[in-house]
Each structure stands twice: as C-alpha cells, then as structure tokens.
C-alpha cells in the first residue's frame, strides 16, 4: 500500500490561478521523496493538501490508503516541519516538542520521557535544551526542535516544507547528515519540498520535479541527474557543483548507502554535463 497517493488532483488558488493540474503522485511507505521546483511551482500546496490544510478542487488524495480522514486526526498522524519552523515563542523547547503529546493527552511522565527521547534523537541534550526558550537557540538548533516536535508522537508520515532553506550552507550540510542519521533510525515516509536540487540529491530516495503544477519527472536521483528534459535541466544547471561535492562528502562521513547514492548522482550529473 502506498503511504501517500495523489490521483488527478487539481487545485486553484483562485479561478485564474491554477496551481495543480491533474497532478498524480505515489509515495511508497518508508521512502524519502524530494519535490523540487521553482518558487511558486506548487510544491508547498502539495504538502498542505496531504494534511488537509488545503482541500483539492477535484481528484483524490489518500494517506495510508484512506482518503476520508477527519482533518484533526490526520494532522496528528502527519508530522509537519516548516521553513520558518513556527516554534511557539511562549513555550520552552520541551513545551514545543510536547505540543502534540498534550493534545493527545499523554500522561505527563510518559510525555516527558518521550520529549527527552526525541530531543536526543535530533542531537539536542535534553538537560541543556529542554528548558530553553526558542529565542535562545541558533537557527540550526531551532530547526532541530522543529523536527523533534514533528516526530514527537511518532507519526508514520513526515512533511517538510523547505526545512533547511533559511540556514547557512555549513549548518545546512550538517543537518542533511543529521536527517539521514535520524531517518535511518525511524524510517518514516517523508516528503521534502525544496527548490534546491542539491538538497534533493543529498536526502532523497526519489526526486519529483514539479513544473507549472505538473509532475514532469519522478525517479531515482541518478536517473533525474541524467535527464534531458529541459525543465529538469534548468534546475540541475542552477545547482552549484560545490553543493554536490559537499553533499557527497557529508554523506561519505555518514553511511555507505548515502555515499553510493550521492556518487551515483554526481557521476550521472557529470556525465550529463559532459554530453552538452
């Protein structure tokens, strides 16, 4: 069973502004899918359709095989990480991470254990960070808290909207490594939205390229890297070569699968560039 399935989904922001046009996509359970496209291509809309922050004009969206979720119940099974993080400034780190646990009425001791657990998972020492306020964190730390908050109730699906977009390159590379480490432990179904092809190569099992509301390519990174479709090429060419190398290096320090994937991608990319 596919974890998430879009079939012929259309969505318009207004009658004149069509964002998605008969869009279809299947995300398999446990896959990390990166959706790449230019700003305004409709990537964030796709995420918001998954957890019913937006409703489609037509078509069907199923999460875990079910398309008639009650929105509140659905959202508590789908973790969501925003680019601006959206940490609640009036709650401590522990308060932020425990939000959904409180909504789900977890018993306090159990919730406290879980909060410590996910904080450790994202690489933040609970004794040091649990009592801090969001404005006492660096950008990278804030994003880690955002991820911990999304993972707190252990949802099967994780949606990430430009999660690393506002970070400096070094921190971003560091968090890419962290992401792969966490994912190797939790094995979620993840959709990441990004405008940065390099990020997609660094993180995804499959890459979907969105152009003007359509899925124009959807394949393994290596295949995408060698694509000749001009809409894909534009995104590939915009990617600084440096990013790929750094991504590859970070992966090399991490796990073998990542390195292979990244090397494959760089190799295909180099090949593709050579063909031009």
């Amino acid at each position, binding site marked *: 069973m596919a974890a998430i399935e879009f079939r012929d989904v259309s969505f318009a922001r207004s009658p004149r502004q069509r964002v998605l046009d008969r869009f279809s996509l299947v995300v398999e359970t446990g896959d990390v899918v990166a959706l790449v496209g230019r700003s305004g291509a409709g990537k964030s809309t796709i995420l918001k359709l998954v*957890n019913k*922050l937006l409703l489609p004009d037509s078509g069907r969206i199923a999460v875990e095989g079910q398309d008639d979720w009650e929105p*509140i*119940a*659905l*959202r*508590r099974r789908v973790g*969501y990480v*925003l*680019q*601006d*993080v*959206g*940490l*609640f*400034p*009036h709650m*401590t780190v522990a308060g932020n991470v425990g*939000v*959904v646990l409180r*909504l789900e009425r977890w018993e306090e001791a159990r919730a406290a254990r879980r909060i410590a657990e996910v904080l450790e998972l994202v690489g933040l020492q609970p004794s040091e960070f649990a009592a801090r*306020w969001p*404005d006492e964190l660096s950008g990278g730390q804030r994003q880690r808290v955002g991820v911990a*908050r999304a993972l707190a109730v252990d949802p099967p699906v994780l949606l990430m909207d430009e999660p690393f977009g506002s970070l400096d390159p070094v921190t971003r590379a560091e968090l890419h490594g962290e992401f792969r480490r966490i994912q190797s432990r939790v094995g979620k179904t993840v959709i990441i939205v990004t405008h940065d092809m390099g990020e997609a190569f660094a993180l995804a099992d499959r890459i979907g390229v969105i152009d003007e509301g359509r899925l124009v390519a959807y394949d393994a990174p290596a295949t995408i890297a060698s694509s000749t479709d001009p809409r894909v090429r534009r995104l590939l060419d915009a990617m600084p070569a440096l990013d790929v190398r750094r991504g590859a290096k970070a992966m090399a320090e991490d796990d073998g699968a990542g390195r292979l994937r990244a090397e494959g991608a760089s190799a295909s990319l180099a090949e593709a560039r050579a063909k031009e």
Partner: protein
Amino acid sequence: MTTVVQFWLSHRRELAALLSQHVALVTISTLAAVAIAVPLGIFAAKRPRLAAPLTGIANVVQTIPSLAMFGFLLPVPLVGGVGARAALAVLILYGLLPIVRTTIAGLRGIDPAIREAGIAMGMTERQLLRQVELPLALPSIVAGVRVAAVVGVGSATIAAAIGAGGLGEYIYRGLSMVDTTVILAGAIPAALLALLVDAALLWLERALSPRRRGQRRHLAAAVMTTIAAVVVLTSGVGARRSTGSIVIGSKNFTEQVVLGELLAQTIERVGLPVDRRLNLGGTLICDRALMTGDIDAYVEYTGTALTAVFHQPVGKSPTAVYDTVRDLYARSGRTLLPPLGFNNTFAILVRGRDARTLNLRTIDDAVPQARRWRAGFGYEFLERPDGFPGLARTYGLRFADAPHVMDLTLSYRALASGQVDLIAGDATAGLIKGLDLFQLEDNREYFPPYDAAIVARSNTLLKRPEVRAALETLAGRISAADMRAMNYAADVEHRDVRQIVRDFLGKPAM
C-alpha cells in the same frame, strides 16, 4: 501643598472611602470592559469585514465627552439614572475601544507560520486560540487594558457628577467652593493612582511578553491573583449600601451640599442610616433621580421648581408659588415640605469697587454701564425662562457681547478677578462677602421667590413617618443669614461641611 496635606489628614477617613470607591469603579469597569471587549476583539479579528465598522463605532463612542455620555444615559432604564451603576456603564463603554483594538492587533500580529504550525499539529480552533493565539496576543491585550484603566481613572472623577462617589467628589466640591486645596486633594491622588495603574500594568505587560522567563510569568500570575482579590474586596465596599437607608441628594454647589448634609445629619440624629448622593449635576438630574427613586429627598427652591421642573409661568407671590408647586409635586408622587426659612433668589452681582465708584444700587442703575460690560452666566441661568432672557427684556439689559457661559461657582471668581463685570449668583452665596461683591437690588421685582424647601418621595414619607417628622423639624429654621454664614464658612473659610452642619444643628432648636 501643606494645606492639601492638612486637608487629607483631617479628612483621612473620607479620603480612604473615596479612594476605595474610585479604585472599585475603575477595577470593576475595566474588568467588565475586558470581559466584553476581548471576546469581541477575537470575534472581529477573524472577520475583517466586521473589524472596521466595530472599531469605527468604538471610536465614535470614545469621542463623546464623558459628561455628555452621562447625560445620554440618564433616561436609559437599567444602566441610566444616577449612582455607581450608571457611572460603571459609562466607564465600561470608554474601556471597550482600546481593548477591542489591541485584541485585534495582538491576534493579527501573530506570525502566520506560528498559527499554521498550530493548525498543522492538529489543534482545533479552540485549542489554537487558547494555547497559542491568546497567550501571544496577551501582552498587546494588556497594553489595551492599561490604556483603558488609566483613562478610567481619569473618567471616574467625572462620575462624581452623578453621585457615584470617588475622588472626583473632592474635585467637584473644590470647584463649587472655588477652593484649589480641595480640588488638589482629589486631583493629586487621582493622578497618582493613574501613574500607579500605568506602571503596574506596564510591568505586567512586559512580564507576560513571550520572551520572558518562566518565574516572571509566575510572578505575573501572582499579581493578577492579587488584583482579583483586591477587586473582590473593594467591590464588597462599593456595593455595600445598607438597605432601608434614606438617600439624600443635592445639586452641585456649596449651599446645596451644605443643605444635603443638613438633611442627612438631621435624619441620622434620629438614628436612621443615610446614603449621601451630594453634588449631583443640577436641577434636572436631581428631579429625575427623585422621580426614579435613586434619591429620596433633596432641597429645591420654589421658583426653580415652578419654572425649570414644571414649566409654569413665573409667579411673584411667595405663598402662591409655594402652593402651586406643592400641588404639582403632590400630583407626581412627591411631597414638598414647609419652607426652610430663607429665599435664595438670583442675585445680580457686580464688583463692590465698581458699585462704589459708579454709585450703583439697583439693576436699573447698571443698565447704562452694561453696554461696556461683559457678563458671565451659568448655563442654567442663560436658558431658563426666569433667567437671563426675561431679565434682559424687563430691564432692557444689553452687554458688549453675548454673555459668557461659565460654571456658576467659577463665575464669582471670574467677576472678582475682572474677567467679567456682571454675573448672576445666589443671594445666599458666602463668596459675596468673601470676595467683596455687591448685589444689585431687583427694583422691578423681576425674580420670582426662591424659597428653599425639602422635596421628598411621598412613598418614603408614608412608609417612614419618622423621616418626615425629622425633616419637618427643619421648617422655618434656616434664615438667610444662617445660610450665608454656612456658605461663607465653607467657601471662604474652607471649613469642613460636616463640621459646619454639626455646629449649626448643635444650636438648640427654636
């Protein structure tokens, strides 16, 4: 300043009572405004089409001068009339705007990403509001509450005009006695209270800001609890009104306050509790309060009752006027008791120096001079048929320009200091002597008799015959000289009204 301190020391119990009334008025009205305005603001913040007209209406309400607002509300059932209830209604109306506005601003100012995070986390609309939106908007809301409370401290001084008490009572009393000390005795604590409220709520606003540490938030919660406790305690004080007490009213000038106090002490001397509603706005407010039962008795003047209350033509014979007025009152459930003994007719006053140098004795003597003069009259005198219009016709009186409208009690000072040259005062005013003013003789007998007499609700007198008996002991007991002496003691010697009345009643009855 030392005289103000002396005044406080000699009036400390009254000061404490007025201060606690003031605090109760402001706290209760502000809390009620919060209870109305915050839900209203929340409702409007989510509906932009509603927010604009709502703040528009609140803006208009805000621009109505508070005295006018009290006037508008007088005839309204439930909230109108005189006393603390009407004052609270007005103060609440004033408190709404700033709180509605800052509630809307606070909610609109929340980072959309934060709101989206809450929704995406599976919060219901209620949970989002309670756990995220309200806590984040709270500092902004408290800022609005701060504005409302500080404005409330100021507006509450005006509440004394409708007998709601508070520090404004000193301000009004001081104005009516033309005594800066008494004005300051009310104005200084009111200003200090405003500063204190401002500082306390500013601190609360900062303590509640989301970027503060937890302890301070606990402290803020402690402060709010304290405020709630104070409210509970003071509201007990404010609401306490012994049932069965007789409510005595008076208009807002010295003689009326003295007479009101005289009625009050007379009733207290026979062992009955009295609720004083002195310093009410004017004749019409007193009359309406008597009709509605907000007060049980006050002292009215026959000529005033005839023209201003019953809109009858001016009469000249004192007994005929008294009989007519008594019958008219009797028809509307009110009883006019026998006259107190003095006639407080209008006195056309000029400076004593002018009277001497120009050799003026009667109003006729002054008519030729008046063309170079400016006149200052109270609003009531200017409007009443037995006031300026008739006077001008009878004597052919003309001034250099249209008479200035000024507060009756301020006009004595205005005359003495040369800002105006002729005023219409009360014949029994103590200031006539104190400021060396001269009363021109009404040689054409224009002014009708103004015999002072107690008017009371017939119901009250029937149910409480001992009240009638007590009040009737005052009949014929106060001569014009007595009245002028008491007014002089209050206005010029600045003696305490209660003491003046105590001294007067101490004299053995005739």
